[in-house]
């Protein structure tokens, strides 16, 4: 490719085009004006004007989750950049590939407390895989190439590139590099994976369980995981990010375990003698009290990030590498062990698991209840969308109800903020997911508290005429905090009741989209039908649910995983 003379801003746009970027989520501002000017000429890249940079970052995450591609967001210097921080931190915790690009004040002003100056590379150091401050325009193409490479390879994650305004305006001879050479960034050392040891553990286990995390999605290893689980024919549990890694409608799948997992799922993990963890990191929300976690279990831990091995739970056999490449080798090795030594007999174990499942199902009782129960609402929405919709959620009780009752049958179908737990994630992620998967039905299950944290971006969804449906399970509370106050703070509801504001139907009207409300169980189905029939832009559905409903079962923070509390029987 012949070199071409152009500005840094133009070069950036060319770089993004070369990376195949379709959407950028951002807000322009003074220090990124040259880039937006160059973007004006791009025929390939579509820019989505969000109303707050945090939404841009979350939308980029939603896009990345839904498609497996790198999400891209823009912000100007200072507040534009700091508004991105929550989204970047969220992506970091959940290993979402993202490239955030910020303008900064001219190089000569950096370090002078200039107008709208913030040290965004300093600020985001702990929450990015890496970041760059570009001081020489000649380095820009290489940096952008590296940024995308780092974001999507290994354990994916967010990166940030900060470009001072003078660098955007400076000229260079543009040529996009074809290869990346970062001396300190390489895949983990290819130690000979201990596949035989792992296969022997599987062969000799009598109470195995497969534990699936977000790594399955990041590695795109759905088929490989399915084959492995079918071969083992053992119970499968998932994290919230593991939802969709294996169909929850499959008889082996026990769904989510952990703080709000099913009793049967937690009992299964606690009672197992072998845990095969695939792309998961033993987060405190799934292990409960660490010292009592699965006391008899040996652990096979497959992860792409060597630093996750034995970080919290010591792995008996670690397998470091990309799941898509590594897991089939383990499947083969296990098949070999099974054919040579016979399959292990795990029927007694499966019977016990089935009994737990029978005896301790997830439960709620809508019959005879004057109010809509949020669990029932989730199940009704699932029915109405035939379980096929891509779901995004906010953070709180509604998120856990969705995690428990939304039976995820397909990969990339359940998009949520797991690690950071960011309220306000639902609407932005739905925008990103719908743009990434225009043919999919994309819905949001949100809470009233969570929804209000980013609702200004209804404007974005309306602008784009995105037929997304946001179901707000409205209990007029910051419900999850309220639940903890009821259980652990003696019913002292400090600052958790929310006033009945805004009127979500009128709000929808003000933004020019459809607003619906269901107050009683009798109203719900009709309202859902109207929502799903609406194809012309967003719908906001205000579902008034029983205010005091709590998420059960629950492992209190710091308690052993099988030490769960349940709600009152109704």
């Amino acid at each position: 490719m012949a070199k071409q003379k152009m500005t840094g801003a133009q070069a950036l746009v060319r770089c993004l085009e070369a990376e195949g970027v379709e959407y950028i989520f951002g807000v322009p501002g003074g220090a990124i004006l040259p880039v937006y000017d160059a973007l004006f000429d791009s025929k390939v890249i579509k820019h989505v004007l969000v109303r707050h940079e945090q939404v841009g970052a979350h939308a980029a995450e939603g896009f990345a989750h839904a498609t497996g591609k790198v999400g891209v967001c823009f912000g100007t210097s200072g507040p534009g950049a700091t508004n991105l921080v929550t989204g970047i931190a969220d992506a970091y915790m959940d290993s979402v590939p993202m490239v955030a690009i910020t303008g900064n004040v001219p190089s000569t002003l950096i370090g002078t407390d200039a107008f709208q100056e913030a040290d965004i590379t300093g600020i985001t150091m702990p929450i990015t895989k890496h970041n760059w401050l570009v001081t020489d325009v000649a380095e820009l193409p290489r940096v952008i190439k590296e940024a995308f490479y780092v974001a999507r390879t290994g354990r994916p994650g967010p990166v940030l590139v900060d470009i001072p305004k003078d660098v955007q305006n400076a000229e260079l001879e543009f040529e996009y590099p074809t290869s990346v050479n970062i001396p300190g960034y390489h895949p983990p050392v290819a130690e000979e994976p201990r596949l035989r040891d792992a296969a022997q553990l599987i062969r000799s286990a009598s109470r195995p369980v497969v534990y699936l995390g977000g790594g399955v999605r990041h590695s795109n290893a759905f088929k490989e995981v399915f084959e492995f689980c079918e071969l083992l024919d053992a119970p499968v549990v998932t994290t919230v990010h593991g939802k969709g890694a294996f169909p929850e409608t499959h008889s082996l799948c026990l769904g989510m375990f952990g703080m709000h997992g099913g009793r049967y799922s937690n009992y299964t993990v606690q009672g197992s003698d072998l845990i095969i963890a695939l792309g998961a990191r033993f987060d405190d929300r799934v292990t409960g009290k660490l010292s009592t976690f699965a006391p008899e279990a040996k652990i096979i831990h497959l992860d792409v990030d060597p630093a996750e091995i034995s970080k919290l739970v010591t792995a008996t056999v670690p397998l470091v590498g990309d799941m898509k490449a590594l897991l089939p080798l383990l499947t083969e090795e296990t098949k070999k062990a099974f054919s040579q030594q016979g399959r292990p007999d795990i029927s007694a174990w499966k019977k016990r698991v089935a009994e737990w499942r029978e005896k301790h199902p997830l439960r709620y009782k809508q019959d005879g209840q004057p109010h809509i129960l949020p669990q029932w609402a989730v199940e009704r929405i699932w029915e109405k969308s035939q379980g096929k919709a891509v779901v995004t959620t906010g953070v709180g009780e509604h998120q856990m109800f969705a995690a428990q009752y939304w039976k995820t049958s397909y990969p990339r179908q359940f998009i949520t903020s797991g690690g950071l737990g960011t309220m306000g994630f639902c609407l932005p992620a739905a925008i990103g997911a719908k743009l990434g998967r225009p043919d999919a039905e994309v819905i949001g299950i949100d809470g009233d508290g969570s929804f209000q944290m980013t609702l200004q971006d209804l404007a974005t969804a309306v602008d784009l005429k995105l037929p997304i449906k946001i179901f707000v399970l409205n209990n007029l509370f910051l419900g999850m905090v309220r639940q903890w106050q009821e259980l652990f703070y003696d019913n002292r509801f400090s600052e958790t009741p929310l006033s009945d504001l805004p009127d979500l139907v009128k709000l929808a009207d003000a933004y020019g989209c459809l607003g619906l409300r269901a107050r009683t169980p009798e109203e719900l189905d009709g309202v859902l039908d109207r929502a799903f029939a609406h194809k012309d832009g967003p719908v906001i559905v205000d579902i008034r649910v029983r205010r005091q409903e709590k998420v059960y079962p629950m492992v209190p923070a710091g308690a052993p995983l099988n030490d769960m509390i349940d709600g009152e029987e109704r």
Partner: protein
Amino acid sequence: MERTETRPNGSTHTISLLVENKPGVLHRIAGLFSRRGYNIASLTVGPTERPEYSRMTIVVRLSSKPVEQVVRQVQKLVPVVEVRELSPQDLIERELLLVKIRTPEKNHAELRALAETYEASIVDVSPDALVIEASGNAGKLDALEERLAAYGIQELCRSGRIALERGFKTLAPRNLK
């Protein structure tokens, strides 16, 4: 500055890093140690045989976490080209000490003799003060410090540990080995 040889609990490890010689790298590494709760006993950084890399020697004190965890986390930082714990058996470690003693001239001869015992040298003399320079491993410097305390230490400065392994082993990046 931590007395590296006399901690009551925890174990210390010498970690050697080859890092890209670029702005902000120290910040990234120090930030990682602080946010993950790894206790830095000393940290030194300086040029190496190749201008594009710097070498850092970090002495880390760990009470519960295994040192492998620290090494793996550090390895994830993009500008860290190579990192390893140096084996305590094969370690050549040195530290530099500068210490200013305020003492009348009549004591100077005694101090000179003491310095000699520790292979230290007196690098500045004024009528009522001396500056002594010593190098060696931390234990030796700790001992010297203790002896000098009796004369009244006015000011003291230690460089933190630098270290290499004996023999042919190096920390060169893979592609340069």
